[in-house]
């Protein structure tokens, strides 16, 4: 994929092109990493037809108030549990809609990711391995956007929403290079600067593009094999495609009943847009829902956040299923960590990475599976401990990407998932 590499990650055409150029150049010049940096060294990885939605609960949601409640324990807090469509499995009472849809959902309750500082933990979970000084790894979503890309698509391969500013992350492209940067939507859910300059008619705009293409083709023939020219052309193709796809970002195009079903919260709007993008064959969409860092007033904040998540996530699952998209779309609910068993003096929960939960549904996932277990108070993993690398390997495997496949970073073969990662097969079909 070739996409915006500008520092602001905005879709202003000039900065878009400049960024693309910079991205291409960086691909050939990254220290020790050659042109083949983004190429697999073993059998082609590319999967067709699979797509991914990442839902990032920024700040660290509480497993106690969602997937792994401990009612009646000192650590459990005041929320009760409710039964689910999986016999014997209960979730927090704040998730009645999810409870009735567990046949679609798998939960890993036994993550021990150790790292409990926001930035480092977010890197760890997003990349699937500890950072290394010697090599800049791409995030899982970036790898997937490359491997799940639709050939010749005019749409971006990765769209990332992070409209709140706290803990905002821009997916790391790492050694894959800036041409794999996602389209970032940070100020609104519609890309900026997609409209032609004021006063320019559509006809004139097309004429300009025709002239640019003519000159570009002539130049390309003279400079056969130029990666940079191919990059320019691809970039223009993408931006033209995005301009033609502007309607995708307009939720007014959705029937009112559908918009109302998703609700008016920003998270609801973004999930509806995610579904529209998935339907239009964008391979990877990431939505960040902030901000779950409930050091104080944990129960009041989760009472606000979890019902919104419960409602919107359930509508999204239903909508994807009704449109026949859930089978081919992996929906991942992630966070940088969970929250402490201990309830602090300000009725809050602090950062906790030793025993927490994630959930997933859709492509490759054996819905209705609960993997792993924590102890009675949720202080430690009791069974089925998994780490960030295991989770990454499982995510890749779910959409049919072999996590042992390798990229070649200079002279170094780099497996997609860390060498010792274990796929959690129990939750996969």
């Amino acid at each position, binding site marked *: 994929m070739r996409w915006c590499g500008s520092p602001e990650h905005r879709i202003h055409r000039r900065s878009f092109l400049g960024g693309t150029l910079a991205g291409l150049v960086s691909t050939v010049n990254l220290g020790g990493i050659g042109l083949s940096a983004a190429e697999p060294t073993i059998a082609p990885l590319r999967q067709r037809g699979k797509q991914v939605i990442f839902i990032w609960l920024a*700040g660290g949601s509480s497993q106690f108030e969602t997937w792994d409640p401990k009612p009646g324990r*000192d650590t459990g807090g*005041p929320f*009760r549990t409710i039964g689910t469509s999986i016999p014997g499995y209960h979730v927090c009472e704040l998730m009645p809609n999810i409870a009735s849809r567990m046949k679609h959902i798998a939960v890993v309750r036994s993550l021990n990711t150790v790292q409990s500082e926001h930035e480092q933990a977010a890197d760890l979970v997003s990349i699937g391995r500890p950072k290394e000084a010697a090599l800049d790894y791409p995030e899982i979503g970036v790898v997937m956007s490359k491997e799940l890309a639709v050939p010749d698509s005019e749409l971006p391969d990765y769209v990332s929403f992070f*409209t*709140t*500013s*706290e803990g905002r992350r821009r997916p790391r492209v790492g050694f894959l290079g800036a041409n794999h940067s996602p389209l970032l939507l940070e100020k609104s859910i519609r890309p900026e600067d997609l409209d032609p300059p004021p006063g320019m008619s559509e006809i004139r705009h097309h004429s300009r593009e025709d002239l640019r293409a003519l000159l570009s083709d002539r130049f390309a023939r003279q400079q056969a094999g130029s990666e940079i020219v191919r990059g320019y052309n691809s970039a223009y193709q993408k931006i033209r495609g995005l301009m033609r796809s502007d309607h995708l970002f307009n939720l007014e195009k959705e029937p009112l009943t559908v918009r109302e079903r998703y*609700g*008016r*919260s*920003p*998270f609801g709007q973004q999930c509806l847009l995610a579904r529209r993008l998935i339907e239009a064959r964008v391979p990877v969409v990431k939505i960040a*829902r*902030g*901000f779950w*860092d*409930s*050091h*104080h*007033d944990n129960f*009041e*904040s989760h*009472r*606000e*956040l979890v*019902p*919104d998540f419960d409602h919107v996530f359930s509508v999204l699952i239903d909508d994807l299923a009704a449109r026949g998209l859930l089978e081919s779309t992996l929906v991942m609910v992630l966070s940088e960590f969970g929250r402490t068993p201990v*309830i*602090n*003096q*300000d*009725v*809050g929960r602090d950062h906790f990475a030793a025993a927490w939960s994630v959930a997933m549904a859709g492509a490759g996932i054996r819905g209705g599976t609960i993997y792993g277990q924590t102890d009675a108070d949720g202080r430690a993993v009791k069974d089925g401990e998994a780490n960030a690398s295991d989770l990454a390997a499982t995510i890749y495997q779910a959409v049919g990407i072999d996590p042992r496949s390798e990229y070649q970073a200079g002279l170094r073969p780099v497996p997609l998932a860390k060498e010792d990662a274990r796929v959690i097969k129990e939750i996969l079909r």
Partner: protein
Amino acid sequence: MNPVKTPLDPKAIKLLANYDVPGILYGLAVSGDGKTLFGAGQDGALHSVDLRADKPKVTKQNPFHDNYVSSFVWHDGILISGSYDRHIHWTDPKTGNCVRSIIAHDGWVRKIAMTPDAKHLVSIGDDMRVNVWDSRDGKRLASMTGHEARTPEGYLSAMYALAVSPDGRHIASGDRAGFVCVWDLSTGKTVSAFRATDFYTFDAQKRARAIGGVRGLCFSADGNRLAVSGIGAVTNVDGFVGPCRLEWWDWKAAKRLMIGQDKHLAILNHVILGTDEKSLIAVGGGDGGGAMVFWNGTDAPPQVAKPKGHLQAVLLNPDDNRLYAVGHGGFQVWGMDESPKGNPDPRRLLPF
């Protein structure tokens, strides 16, 4: 209620004793003879301290609620408690036996209060209702609605604060979004409603969530004014990172009269009248640590003592100038000297 001649001096007040209980206590009451403190909270159990013992210590009875206990009232030898288990219990503290239990709300019971004539018990819950009960038999007499179930941004709201006027004619209730309703007890009708906007922070830009709300309410001695407590504008809604704040309102005119705010970063969960019946005492906690706030209701800023831990409720014994408080870590007793005086008149204990 008779004014006390020697008001508490905020500069002289100090922690006299604390009685540790693991976790957080929310409900606080004192027995009618003033000898025993009762507290309950996170573990659903009844904790008590015999203040007249040579070495007072905490006694814990078995849990008497199935969830957090949020609020207490002492009446005629019986402890009445509201809980997140949706129930109100009448409990004989001597035996621990529950003598009456009612399902009070379809949601957490957040606060209960007794009218001065002890005929009516009032409760608020997360069904956003204000319910009035016959305190003798537990029968519901009225159920008032007026608070919105959702905040202006569309998220679940909650009921946090409750007060009964000294003449028993009016009830005030406050919610998460800062809305306050004043009700006529005899008719069940709303007689005033206003929004104390500054107690609610919704951060759409950075974190897309809210914090705050009207956490404490208290009528003035003449019943004409209403004190509101909570937290001012919060810079980081991950926590109580805003100034502790009090306001006096002319509730009939829905007009704010005075603001008392201190830079100490805390939310004030509970507010009561001071010994002079003009000043306010509020407790809470937050990013700046625990807070015990004294405000004389003038332009002068409040004075802040820093108790051990985040406090949830406070009760004043005006006869010996003692403040009893509960919160994180258990009970605290505050006062100006270390020598407790004779038995206080229990009728002058301000109920929580």
